[in-house]
């Protein structure tokens, strides 16, 4: 090789973040460690934030008194009911909006107008409409999950490859067959990612829902802690919600993997 030969300069790579194994857990550990240290050394006043160990203590208290399960099960029940019905209704209405011009023209503006209404603003009315039992709590979560589900479902239906639908029609498939076998699976990725959002919202709304005469529930626990300014319990409750959120997102991830194996 001649001596004015030089390798071609490398200029590719990058722009493709890859999973870096343990960084997530390390970040969490670091944050918690610093926080604990700060609390112990008095840099973080207990009024501002309790130490993680204190929050852990509050959690341990809950476990000991056996109330953890009471709170968690009450919340889970509301969450599951509200979310399932909200999501189901949302999927139905979203499909209607995705498939029929008239339904879309009616549904879309109504959803746009009602979505930004904060559920806590309506609590007094919810009490009158649905009472102070489980209904109003479930309804709060239901309303919160319904609207984003509608939006993501009709977006998903819109995004189904029209070529596949034309293919179905060209083979004389019935309308219902096309919806069931082509539109539904085609919209599934969008529906599932809509579920991710609505599940987060449902968890967020737990606190709002349990404002209404709830004795047990993570939200009620947090509210009580807030009222009593028991910041250790407050943080413990918030951590429970966080863990709940991570769990739900993990479960949905599994479901996604199973249902969308074909991708």
């Amino acid at each position, binding site marked *: 090789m001649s001596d004015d030969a030089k390798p071609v300069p490398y200029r590719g790579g990058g722009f493709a973040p890859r999973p870096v194994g343990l960084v997530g857990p390390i970040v969490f550990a670091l944050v918690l460690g610093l926080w604990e240290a700060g609390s112990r050394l008095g840099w973080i006043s207990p009024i501002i934030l309790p130490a993680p160990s204190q929050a852990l203590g509050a959690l341990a208290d809950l476990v000991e008194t056996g109330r953890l399960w009471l709170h968690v099960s009450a919340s889970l029940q509301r969450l599951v009911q509200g979310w399932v019905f909200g999501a189901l209704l949302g999927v139905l209405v979203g499909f209607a909006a995705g498939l029929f011009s008239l339904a879309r023209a009616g549904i879309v503006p109504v959803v746009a107008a009602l979505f930004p209404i904060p559920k806590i603003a309506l609590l007094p009315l919810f009490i009158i409409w649905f009472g102070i039992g489980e209904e109003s709590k479930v309804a709060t979560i239901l309303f919160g999950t319904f609207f984003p589900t509608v939006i993501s479902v009709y977006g998903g239906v819109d995004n189904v490859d029209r*070529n596949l639908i*034309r293919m179905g029609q*060209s*083979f004389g*498939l019935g309308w219902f067959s096309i919806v069931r*076998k082509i539109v539904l*699976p085609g919209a599934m990725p969008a529906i599932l990612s809509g579920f991710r959002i609505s599940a987060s919202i449902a968890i967020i709304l737990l606190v709002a829902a349990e404002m209404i005469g709830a004795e047990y529930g993570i939200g009620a626990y947090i509210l009580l802690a807030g009222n009593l300014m028991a910041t250790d319990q407050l943080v413990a409750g918030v951590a429970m919600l966080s863990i709940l959120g991570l769990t739900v997102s993990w479960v949905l991830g599994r479901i996604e993997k199973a249902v969308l194996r*074909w991708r």
Partner: protein
Amino acid sequence: MDLHISDISHSYGATEVLRGIDLHITAGQIVCLIGPSGCGKSTLLRFVGGLERPRSGRVVQIGEPPAGCLNPLTYIFQDFALLPWRTAAGNISLVLEDHGLGRAAVREIVDDVLARTKLTDFRDALPRQLSGGMKQRVAIARALAVRPACLLMDEPLSALDSQTRDLLLDDLLDLWLRERFTACYVTHNLEEAVRIGHRVVVLSRRPGQIREVVDLDIPLEDRLDHPEALETRRRHLWELMREEALAADKELADV
């Protein structure tokens, strides 16, 4: 069953796409449609298949489709149009499920068409696991499953690389020799047209009008033995197309 296209014109909004198309597709023959990009070939094919309705003119079928035909006018699409969430076999059974044939009958048909397209080993593969050529063979198998009277093919090979394309064109020829199906075959590729077409219909650029109809009288099975004759036809078609393409390439395609 013959197809007769009479005086079809169409426009989308302000763009006139087709103007006064008259065409007869005789049973057992392959009619190739060629023409520059955007001249309305796909649109015309959609009219023929009943997927869309033209502004004026009509498409009629003359005579009954043969018995046992589940879907007289059957498409094969350029992008295969396979459901990505169904296996090869599932994609084929899809078009049979609505006919109430019973499980065993469906399975039998699926196995038969998979065998005819040499896909038996891939019956449970998902589309993403298949190469382009195999995907299009699944699409062809699916079309055969409904025993069509007429195949409507919209650039069925143009998404494939040239070797695979050649192989698949041979397959299609074999198939025609055995089954003598009717077909309307849209293509950009003049070689394909002169190899598989009984007639080649040349459309002008948009608005598409019939510019010339070239009949190729050499039987399909003998075509490869007459390379010069085919080359002459190809040259002729190429000359027709070249001016159109040159002109079309100079226009802003604002869609």
